[in-house]
C-alpha cells in the first residue's frame, strides 16, 4: 500500500509543479493588475444622511423590502473603525441582508474627530450622540421603539447608554464582541500599564490620539500576521476572489480612526485601569452606568477565535445585565469574520435575524 502511495506521489508531483508554474505566471500577470487597479467599491448600499454633527454621522439606508418590521434598528459603530465593514459589497453586506429581510436600518458612524474635538469625552458619546441619534431615528421613522446593535466598542457605548436610560426607548439590544472585563484584554492592559503609560502626558500634548497609534496597537496583538498576510497574498494573487476579499478587509483594517483625546483618557483610566464596567462602578457624566439596570431583551454574539476581544473579556456581559430575556451565542470566527465575510453570512446573520424578527413587531 505504501509503495503504491509513494508511486502516486511521484506521479502527481510533476502535475503539482506544472500547476505551481502556471500559478507563478498568473501571479506576475495578476500582480501587475493588483497595483494598477483599485479595490472594490465599499459601503455602496444606498443611504441618506439624516444628520451630521462633527464626528457623528447618522445614516438611513433605503429600504429594500416592500414591507418592514415596525421597530427600526440603530447600529452603533465602534469609534476606532469605519462602518463600511458592515456594508462591504453586494452579497457580502450585513446592511443589505437586514434590508432584504425587512428591517429599517440606521447607522451611527464616525468620521475622524477634528483637532478641535479633542475635548469630546465619554459623556458626549453616551449622553449626547447616541440619545440624539435615537431621537432622530424616532422622528424619521415615526416609531418610539428602537433596537440597538453595537459592534465592539460600539457595544460598550450601547451598554452604557442602556444602563443610563433603562426606561427606554431602546427595545432590544444586540452586542457583537463587546468587552466588559477589561483586565482580560491582556495586551492592551500591558501597553497601557499605569506604572509606565502617562495618558495625561499623551492627551495633553497631542490632543486626539492618532490613527497610526490605534492601528499599531491592533497590529501588535498579532505582530507576525502583517508579513504573513503579504506572503499569503502573493501566494494567492492568481485567485481573484481571494484578492478581492483581501483588499476589502485590508482597506478597512488600515482605515483606522483617531480617538478624541478626552474620550481616550476616559477609556484608559475608567476601563483599562480601573475596570469600572466590570466592577459596577462606571459613571458617565456623573450618572451611574450599572449594567444590571438593563432590562431589555439582549443578544450577545462572541467569536470563538477573537484575538482583540477574547471570550474571557466578553463573557460577563450576559451575567451582568438585568434582562430576563438574554442570550449569548458563540460562533466560529474572529473579531471581524464574525460580522463580515463568508462565515458571517452563514452563521451570525441568520442567527441575528431569527432572534430579532419576533422582537421587532
Amino acid at each position, binding site marked *: 500500500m505504501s509503495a503504491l*502511495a509513494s508511486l*502516486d*506521489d511521484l506521479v*502527481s*508531483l510533476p502535475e*503539482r509543479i506544472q500547476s*505551481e508554474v502556471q500559478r507563478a505566471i498568473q501571479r506576475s500577470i495578476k500582480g501587475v493588475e493588483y497595483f494598477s487597479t483599485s479595490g472594490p467599491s465599499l459601503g455602496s448600499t444606498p443611504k*441618506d*444622511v*439624516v*444628520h*451630521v*454633527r*462633527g464626528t457623528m454621522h447618522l445614516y438611513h439606508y*433605503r*429600504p429594500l*423590502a416592500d*414591507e*418592514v*418590521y*415596525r421597530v427600526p434598528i440603530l447600529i452603533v459603530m465602534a469609534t476606532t473603525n469605519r462602518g463600511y465593514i458592515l456594508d462591504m459589497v453586494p452579497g457580502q453586506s450585513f446592511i443589505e441582508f437586514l434590508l432584504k429581510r*425587512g428591517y*429599517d436600518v440606521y447607522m451611527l458612524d464616525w468620521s475622524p474627530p*477634528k*483637532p*478641535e474635538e479633542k475635548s469630546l469625552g465619554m459623556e458626549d458619546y453616551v449622553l449626547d450622540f447616541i440619545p440624539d441619534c435615537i431621537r432622530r431615528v424616532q422622528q424619521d*421613522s415615526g*416609531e418610539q421603539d428602537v433596537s440597538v446593535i453595537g459592534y465592539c466598542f460600539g457595544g460598550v457605548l450601547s451598554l452604557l447608554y442602556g444602563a443610563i436610560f433603562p426606561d427606554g426607548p431602546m427595545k*432590544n439590544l444586540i452586542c457583537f464582541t463587546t468587552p466588559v472585563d477589561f483586565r482580560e484584554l*491582556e*495586551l492592551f492592559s*500591558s*501597553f497601557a*500599564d499605569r*506604572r*509606565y*503609560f*502617562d495618558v495625561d*502626558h*499623551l492627551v495633553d*500634548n*497631542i490632543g486626539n490620539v492618532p490613527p497610526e497609534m490605534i492601528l499599531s496597537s491592533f497590529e*501588535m*496583538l*498579532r*505582530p*507576525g*500576521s502583517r508579513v*504573513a498576510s503579504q*506572503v*499569503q497574498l502573493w*501566494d494567492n494573487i492568481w485567485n481573484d476572489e481571494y484578492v478581492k476579499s483581501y483588499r476589502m478587509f485590508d482597506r478597512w483594517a488600515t482605515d483606522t480612526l483617531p480617538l478624541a483625546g478626552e474620550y481616550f483618557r476616559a477609556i484608559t483610566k475608567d476601563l483599562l485601569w480601573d475596570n469600572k464596567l466590570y466592577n459596577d462602578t462606571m459613571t458617565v457624566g456623573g450618572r451611574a452606568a450599572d449594567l444590571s439596570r438593563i432590562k431589555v*431583551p439582549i443578544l450577545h454574539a462572541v467569536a470563538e477565535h477573537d484575538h482583540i476581544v477574547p471570550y474571557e473579556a466578553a463573557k460577563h456581559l450576559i451575567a451582568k445585565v438585568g434582562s430576563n*430575556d438574554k442570550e449569548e451565542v458563540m460562533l466560529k470566527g474572529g473579531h471581524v469574520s464574525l460580522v463580515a465575510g463568508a462565515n458571517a453570512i452563514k452563521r451570525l446573520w441568520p442567527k441575528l435575524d431569527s*432572534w430579532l*424578527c*419576533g*422582537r*421587532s*413587531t
Partner: protein
Amino acid sequence: MADDSKDPFALWRKMMGEMEKGFNTFANQAMSSPQFSKTMNQAGGATVGAQKQLGNLMEKYLLAMNMPSRAQMVDMAERLQSIEGHLNEIKTLLQQMSAVNGMTRDSAAAASKPPRTKRPPQPAGDTKQPPGEKK
C-alpha cells in the same frame, strides 16, 4: 489522491502558518512583560514630548513668517464646519420639500417609506407565538 504531507508546496504553506503562529505567541509573551511596557512607553513619551516641542517651534515660525497660526486655522475650520452643518440642514429640508412635491425620482424614492407591518415568518406547522411578540 496524493497525501498533502508529501506535497512540498503544501508543506511550505503549512510551515508558514506555523511560523506565524509561533512568532505571534512568542511576541505576545514578550509584550506582556512590564519591561516591554516600560520601554515602549518611555520611547512613546519621548516622541510625544519631541512632537509637542516641534509643534511649538513651528507655531513661532509661522507667526514670524506672518502666516496664520494653528489656532486661527482651527477657528476657520470651526466656522466652515458650522456652515457645512447649516448647508446639510438646508439640503435635507430641500430634499423633503422636493419629495413632497414629487420633483425628483431619487428624492421621491428616499421619501417613500414601506409600511411597518411586516410579521416574522412562521415555521411551517408551528402556530406558537414568536419570542418577544405581544400577545
